[in-house]
């Protein structure tokens, strides 16, 4: 199952949009944070986890999803949010803590909720697993279409909640897919320090479900594997586990000095940046012309600019609104 030309364009567009978005965020993040870097300052305060380099996973999976499908993501959610179609204006505004943000500034970058496209993320490792399984259960019980995908990092696979949710999804045969983004690191802890086996796809055997590892941060291969898993889920054949090798081109969070990385690792990763690679491939395959790609890139940049502008120009959250929306209206 290879992506069609349109799908390839969609994938490239979303990868570029995500990258541009993060570049914009990264730049703004440093406003007000120099000369002394203090996370609390500037238009975007707090922790910031960028997903540069990990875009292939988001687009390879989300290319198969519609707004009615459910996605839960992690503390590193931008690429997935964008690929899932989260409203970029409101998302940017949320990251800025504005009134017009997805949740009026209550959530922030680690708590992006867009009910229109069934997207949510959260800040505790493996936390999205249960809710995604529950959404899958809900669809099955209601007889409504839709699958649920939980994205997690490779570090999350050692968390107890991950295991429980996998077993639950399997024993109830739910339309659920767990996608592991293996960027090799959990903050400063290397995968081999944390996990007793090399490929988490092998853990699928513990649940009697298909497991597959996709090497090389390759959007096409991810597209193919995700397509199979999602089709399986839609057909009522139950959950799957995918582990995708990917690259974290940024630090764990902004401000991370990354001294824990072996020398040269970062440079090697930059050489494998998936965006120029996909561009080359699109051209080599004749799947897109230079002009088409330029247009996509320009449109993506414009889209991001508009979202950032919207966020910048929106009103700050109202302080006293902090006390509202604790309970459902």
């Amino acid at each position, binding site marked *: 199952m290879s992506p069609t030309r349109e799908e390839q364009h969609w994938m490239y567009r979303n990868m570029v949009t995500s990258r541009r978005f993060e570049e914009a965020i990264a730049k703004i993040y440093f406003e007000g944070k120099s000369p002394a870097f203090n996370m609390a300052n500037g238009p975007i305060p707090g922790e910031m986890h960028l997903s540069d380099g990990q875009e292939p996973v988001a687009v390879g999976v989300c290319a198969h999803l519609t707004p009615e499908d459910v996605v839960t993501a992690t503390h590193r959610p931008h690429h997935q949010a964008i690929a899932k179609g989260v409203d970029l204006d409101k998302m940017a505004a949320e990251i800025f803590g504005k009134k017009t943000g997805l949740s009026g500034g209550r959530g922030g970058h680690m708590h992006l909720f867009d009910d229109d496209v069934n997207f949510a993320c959260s800040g505790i490792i493996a936390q999205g697993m249960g809710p995604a399984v529950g959404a899958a259960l*809900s669809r099955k019980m209601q007889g409504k279409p839709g699958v649920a995908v939980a994205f997690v990092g490779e570090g999350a696979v050692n968390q107890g909640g991950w295991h429980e949710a996998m077993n639950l999804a399997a024993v109830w045969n739910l339309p659920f897919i767990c996608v592991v983004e293996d960027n090799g690191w959990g903050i400063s802890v290397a995968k081999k320090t944390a996990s007793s086996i090399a490929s988490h796809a092998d853990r699928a055997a513990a649940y009697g479900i298909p497991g597959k590892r996709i090497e090389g941060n390759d959007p096409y291969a991810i597209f193919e594997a995700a397509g199979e898993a999602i089709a399986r889920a839609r057909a009522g054949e139950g959950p799957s586990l995918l582990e995708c090798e990917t690259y974290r081109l940024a630090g764990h969070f902004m401000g991370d000095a990354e001294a824990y990385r072996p020398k040269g690792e970062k440079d090697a990763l930059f050489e494998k940046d998936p965006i120029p690679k996909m561009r080359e491939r699109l051209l080599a395959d004749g799947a897109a012309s230079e002009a088409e790609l330029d247009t996509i890139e320009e449109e993506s940049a414009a889209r991001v600019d508009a979202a950032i502008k919207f966020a910048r120009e929106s009103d700050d959250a109202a302080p006293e609104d902090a006390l*509202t*929306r604790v309970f*459902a209206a």
Partner: protein
Amino acid sequence: MTKSNERKLTIARAMAEATAQEMRIDPSVFVMGEDIGPLGGVYGNTRGLIEEFGAERIRDTPISETAFIGAAVGAAQDGMRPVVELMFVDFFGVCFDAIYNLMAKNIYFSGGNVKVPMVLMTSTGGGYSDGGQHSQCLYGTFAHLPGMKVVAPSNAYDAKGLMTAAMRDDSPVVYMYHKGLQGMGWLGTEAGATVHVPEEPYTLEIGKAKVVREGKDVSIVSCGMGVHNALKAAKTLEAQGVSAEVVDLVSLVPLDRDTIRASVAKTGRLIVVDEDYMSYGLSGEIIASVTEHDISVLKAAPKRVAFPDVPIPFARVMEQFCLPNPDKIVAAWDEMQAA
């Protein structure tokens, strides 16, 4: 009501009845938990449900609290109204992240764009020598953290009304039922909890306390089992010419401070009875809520009769030594007079 019209139910049956009635009218309600299917719940609160609604809507789960409570959150956000059971509140430690970081916060994190209409039922309380991991109340633990409503019925009438209200609420409700009130013969049961329960569905307002006995000399404030201890103490005190008012909190969150404050304003004295650990919990909160509001109403220092700050011991004599009881409440009154 004449005796013959009475329809006495245990709390267990009242909870199951409320759930069944709601499930009949609302297809989005379903139940998940350990041993809530064929067994009907270790504490009887789901008895009969699987026979009527089947295993699709009454789901026995693996021993995976993080997964199934997390799943309830996801299902609730997706249009369902799950009722989940945490068999003993003592087990909250294996799954509290799903409870307090997801269930309780997702409405807020979403700015109100998602609803989390779910009920988390959990058994509380000791007194039957079940040891230190099966006997706690943990009222303070749940009530301290924002985003969940918390109720704790003391009798079957309230239990049914709260259960129906909880299932209809668009926010998460933690429903803490006390094993000693549940009406399971094998646990012993407080007779006063088994009361008349109307057949038709009804709701109790979450967040409203009840003055269950009027009095003028002292306010005894409690919830769950403590209410029965308070009522017994009030009887003893009455024989001594002391008129005790008993306030049943019913809900811990929202906390009905007005009713508490009004009662103490009237009586001038406060005894809080709490089966949960004493420090940093319910007893302190009630006292603070009264005193921060107005100390001039107090004729004596407030008192607490609470579980001491020790793990719950197994041996009967030790556990009983620690638990609140009517005698300790009466003694608290006596100390108040002596002071």
